[in-house]
């Protein structure tokens, strides 16, 4: 088995602030993902990475940067937090490309921008 950890669990930021979220997995999975979930809605893909140092944009990449520093970690940066923004950011990983393999999700980081 394995686990995905996300830090921090809760993140409160100020408008215009640059905020970084981190994700670690010990599945030894190749592919990692960042999703955003707004209240009562489905997930939207922000970025994904199929291997170390790889980066692929999802549908919601504008306003975000990401970095796959090593195979086990994938970080997401909100480049300029928007006032009253509130969402959950979910990290996931899979052994291969997501279309062909099960994704495992972390517990999420809850963001609130004041």
């Amino acid at each position: 088995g394995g686990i995905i950890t996300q830090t921090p669990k809760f993140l409160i930021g100020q408008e215009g602030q640059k905020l970084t979220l981190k994700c670690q997995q010990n599945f030894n999975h190749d592919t990692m993902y960042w999703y955003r979930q707004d209240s009562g809605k489905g997930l939207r893909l922000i970025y994904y990475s199929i291997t170390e140092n790889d980066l692929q944009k999802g549908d919601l990449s504008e306003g975000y940067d990401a970095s796959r520093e090593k195979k086990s970690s994938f970080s997401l940066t909100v480049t300029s937090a928007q006032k009253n923004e509130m969402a959950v950011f979910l990290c996931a990983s899979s052994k291969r490309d997501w279309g062909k393999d099960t994704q495992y999700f972390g517990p999420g980081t809850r963001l609130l921008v004041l």
Partner: protein
Amino acid sequence: GMPVEQNPPALSLYEGAESGLRCNFSTTMKGVQWFQQNHRGRLITLFYLAQGTKENGRLKSTFNSKERYSTLHIKDAQLEDSGTYFCAANYNQGKLIFGQGTKLSIKP
């Protein structure tokens, strides 16, 4: 319309009952995944299908890419089945579109 339409938005079942959830797609999709999100927000992948039908215990899922739909059937519903269920369709490499979810409540 929406690329992925999921129905119903909410569903209430008594323990032991069965029912189905459905996602319709506006275009041909390469695959579909079904997820359960529990009350803590934790997402669990239930199925991924490129085509056909898969079964796992009390759950069964079907994906028909030609007819542009997928279903998730739950039988003998249990309290722990409560949560929000999402389908997500693969329409292009790396692009996963989620439905709006079905909030399932199981009553004792």
